[in-house]
C-alpha cells in the first residue's frame, strides 16, 4: 500500500548574502532584494520522502509551499528531483503571517488534500530559524510529531519508526500514522535533479504563470496535465480569516536594527617568538592566564 506524503518546503532568502535593504519599513522581509533558494533542511525532508516513495510502491509525494508567486520555483525544483506534484498556496491574505498564522494556513491546505499519511517538514527555515512551523502544523491538525529526524526507518502497518538526532545523542521512536516529521540537516542530502525529470517538468507552471503564455503552450498543458502546478488562494481552502496573515499573528515586529560592532582598540603583533612571549607574559601578569 502506497503512502500519501506531503513535503512542506519554503522558499527562503539566502541569508548568507544580506544587504541593507533586506527589511521593509513595516518590519517584514523585503524578499525581492535577496536571492531566493529552497530552504536547505527542506531538501533533507524531500529526500526522506523520496526514499519512502521508493520503498513503498504506489506512494505519492506532494510538495506544498506557501509564498508569493515566484515560490513556484520550489515546486519545480521538487519535481525535478522526484516529487509527483505540488501545491502553491498564495494569497495576499497570507501576507505578514508569523509562524502561527503560517501553520494554520498550511494545515488548512493539508486538510483539503485529505487522507495524508505523513507530513515531512524541514527542522527550520534559515530566514527565521524558528523551527516552529512543523510542530505547530501538527498541533493544528491534532497529530503527533517527531522532530529532528535523521532517518525514517519504516512507515508501515500504521506506524512510523524514526531515528532522531538530539544535541547529545540519538533516539529511536515509534509514532502512529498519520503524523508530522521534521527533518534535521544532518540527514542525508537530497539527490540531484534527474535529467529526465528536468525535461519532463521544465514547463510546469501555475495558472498565474500561464497567463501570458502562447496558445501552443496552453494546448500542451491540456495534453499533459502533469505540467499544471496547483495554485490555491484563500478561496480554495477552508479558513477562518481571523487566523490568517497579520491579524492571525500574535507576534508583531516592533523594531529592526542593523547589527553594529563596537570598535575595539586593537594591538597588532607579529608572529615572531619575541612578540608572542611578550603577550603571554602580559596575560600571566594580569591574571588572564594562570
Amino acid at each position, binding site marked *: 500500500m502506497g503512502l500519501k506524503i506531503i513535503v512542506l518546503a519554503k522558499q527562503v*532568502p539566502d*541569508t*548568507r548574502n*544580506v544587504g541593507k535593504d*533586506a527589511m521593509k519599513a513595516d518590519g517584514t*522581509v523585503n524578499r525581492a532584494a535577496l536571492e531566493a533558494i529552497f530552504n536547505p533542511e527542506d531538501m533533507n525532508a524531500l529526500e526522506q520522502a523520496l526514499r519512502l516513495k521508493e520503498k513503498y510502491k504506489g506512494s505519492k509525494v506532494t510538495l506544498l509551499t506557501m509564498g508569493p508567486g515566484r515560490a513556484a520555483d520550489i515546486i519545480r525544483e521538487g519535481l525535478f528531483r522526484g516529487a509527483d506534484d505540488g501545491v502553491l498556496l498564495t494569497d495576499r491574505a497570507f501576507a505578514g503571517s*508569523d509562524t*502561527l498564522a503560517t501553520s494554520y494556513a498550511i494545515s488548512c491546505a493539508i486538510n483539503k488534500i485529505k487522507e495524508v499519511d505523513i507530513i515531512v517538514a524541514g527542522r527550520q527555515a*534559515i*530566514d*527565521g*530559524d*524558528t523551527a516552529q512551523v512543523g*510542530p505547530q502544523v*501538527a*498541533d*493544528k491538525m491534532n497529530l*503527533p*510529531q*517527531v*522532530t*529532528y529526524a535523521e532517518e525514517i526507518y519504516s512507515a508501515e502497518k500504521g506506524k512510523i519508526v524514526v531515528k532522531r538526532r538530539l*544535541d*547529545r*545523542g*540519538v*533516539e*529511536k521512536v*515509534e*509514532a*502512529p500514522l498519520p503524523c508530522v516529521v521534521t527533518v534535521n540537516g544532518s540527514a542525508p542530502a537530497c539527490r540531484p535533479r534527474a535529467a529526465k525529470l528536468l525535461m519532463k517538468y521544465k514547463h510546469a507552471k501555475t495558472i498565474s504563470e500561464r497567463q501570458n503564455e502562447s496558445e501552443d503552450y496552453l494546448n500542451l498543458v491540456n495534453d499533459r496535465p502533469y505540467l499544471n502546478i496547483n495554485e490555491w488562494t484563500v478561496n480554495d481552502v477552508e479558513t477562518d480569516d481571523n487566523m490568517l496573515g497579520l491579524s492571525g499573528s*500574535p*507576534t*508583531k*515586529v*516592533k*523594531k*529592526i*536594527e*542593523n*547589527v553594529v*560592532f563596537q*570598535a*575595539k*582598540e*586593537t*594591538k*597588532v*603583533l*607579529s*608572529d615572531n*617568538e619575541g612578540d*608572542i*612571549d611578550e603577550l603571554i*607574559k602580559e*596575560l*600571566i601578569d594580569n591574571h*588572564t*592566564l*594562570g
Partner: protein
Amino acid sequence: MNSVFVICEIDEGKIADVSLELLTKGRTLSNTLGCKLEAVVLGHKLNGVEEELFPYGADVVHIGDDKRLDPYTTLPHTSVITGLFENEKPQIGLLGATPLGRDLGPRVSSALKSGLTADCTALEIGDHEDKKEKKSYKNLLYQIRPAFGGNIVATIINPDCRPQMATVREGVMKKEIYSPTHKGEVKTIDVNKFIKPEDTVVKVIERHMEKGRVNIKNSSVIVSGGYGMGSKENFEALYELADVLGAEVGASRAAVDAGFAPHDRQVGQTGVTVRPKLYIACGISGQIQHTAGMEESAMVIAINNDSAAPINKVADYVITGDVMDIIPKMIKSYKKNSK
C-alpha cells in the same frame, strides 16, 4: 498580577543550566513587573527538585511527577503545560531553546494561540504604542533576537495574546543565585487531569545519550578553531594549547561542518554563547554569526594569516601568521613563563 513562568528542564538528573539562567532573568523581569516568578518541572522521581530552584528566586515551584513524563515525549508534556497555563494564566512563559524547548514551545503556543519568539538573546520590559489602532500597552515583554542569519536584530512583541512566550539559548543569559535562603511554595500538579490516553502514542524505543557533555560555556579561557585550522589533526594542536592553559576548545560552524570538531563545541548564533576572560580565535574569519556568540569575551586574541580578517575588528590582540606556526610558540612561552 499574573506571574512569569519558567518551564524547567532536567539534564542528567539535575535542573539544566539554561533553566537556571532563565530563572535568573525571570527574577529580574518579575521584580520589574511586581509579580511572582514560578517554575514548572515535569518528569519522574523529582523528589526535592524545588531545593535546586528556590535559590534562583522561584516563588512557586509546580511539580508534575509521573512515569508518563519521563523520558520526554511531546504530547504528555504539551497537555500538562497547556492545561497548567490555562489555569494559571501566566503573562510570560519562558523555555530554553534546547531540542526539548524547541519541540514543546511551538506546540504549547499553538494550542494556546499565544505566539512564540524563538532564540531570544535579550528580554526586556517596555511599553508600546499602536498608532494605527490607537492603543497603548504597558509593560510588554520585548523579545529581542537576531534574524536573517544574524544580520539584523529584531524586537518582537506580543501585544494581545497571553502568555508572551519566548525561548532562549543556553549561555545567553547569566545564571546567578538570587538568595541562598530564598524559599517558596511547592504546588503539585495533578497530571491525571491533563494527560489523555492518546498522548502516549509516541514511544521511545531506544535512546543513546553521551554522558558528561563538554561545557565550554563555563570555561574562563577558550581556544577556538575555525576552518583555517585545515584538518581534524591540526585541531589537536588546539587541544594541546587548551590543556596547557587550562582552557576548553571551541569551534566555528565551518570547522564543525568540516568534521574538525563536534557540534557541542560550536560557538555562535547556532551554537553556544560564551563570555570567557580570554577567547583565542585561531583560523576563524569572524563572520557575524560567529562573533555573535563570543564578542562579549573580556579579551580576544585573533590568529589569522589574513591581516584583514573581520575577526580582527573584535580582537584586542591580532597576530598575523600561520596558526600551526604560532600555537607551538604560545605553548612554549606559557610553559616557560608560568613556572
